[in-house]
């Protein structure tokens, strides 16, 4: 059983490495992710972020703009997850010591 798992994992690793070899170059302008259009014909979201991040928020770091502004709802969810983790720890651990 253990040997079988090892073989399967190695095969999967080989498949992944084979796939990596065929990826487009990092940041290539003609890669599908940078040339694709949405179904309504507008450029995809990543292109919009790269072109407009500085004009929209006057912030040179476009990662910050994407994280906190364009995808602010997602970051709010992440913060809520952290908050929920803290509350869960408080409820479980503090109660058990009384």
């Amino acid at each position, binding site marked *: 059983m253990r040997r079988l798992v090892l073989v399967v994992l190695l095969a999967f690793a080989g498949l992944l490495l084979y796939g990596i070899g065929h990826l487009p170059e990092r940041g290539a302008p003609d890669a599908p992710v940078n040339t694709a259009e949405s179904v309504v014909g507008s450029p995809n979201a990543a292109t919009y972020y790269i072109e407009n991040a500085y*004009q*929209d*928020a*006057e*912030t*040179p*770091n476009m*990662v*910050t*703009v994407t*994280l*906190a*502004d364009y995808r*602010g*709802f997602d*970051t*709010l969810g*992440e*913060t*809520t997850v*952290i*908050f929920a*983790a*803290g*509350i869960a*720890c*408080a409820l479980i*651990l*503090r109660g058990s*010591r009384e």
Partner: protein
Amino acid sequence: MREYYDDRIVALSARLVTPFIQLFALYVVFHGHYSPGGGFQGGAMLAASFLLIRLSIGTEAAQLQFRRTWGTPGSSIGTLVFLGTGLVVVFFGFNFLDYAGLPLGLPEPELRNLGILAVEIGVAVAVAATLTAIYDDLVGERPAAHHAGVEQATDLEEADQVEGPAWHEPAPEAGDG
């Protein structure tokens, strides 16, 4: 369980390093607009500085720096700062989390800039307080503090904890050096 390693060198170096960690954490939070970083990273570093003091001189002494009772309110306040920044603009007719609606009378890009900063500060406060609170919950309060003069320990294990040696006493083999 020994809560911390009672050693002068450890305590002194932790005391020396902590202000720099905190300063760098604030730099990471507030410079997130221009360099890699932001609320999560800065908050984690702030929590690391609190935990370093807790680990080096003990949770009881570290109460002077960051109280145990501040953890849960801190994480709530941080999350509410984020949520409030998103909700304020709704009352001015903008979409949720659209910082262009902040009522400050600045051009739209600067408002977004400030909105991002407010959100990052909220995230940093929430992360720092939550990580510290989780550590405090895992360690728990000092057992003797629970029983000090309030109730007679009847259970054998509880009696052990009350009558036993001080909590933070170093192990004998590590004592002299």
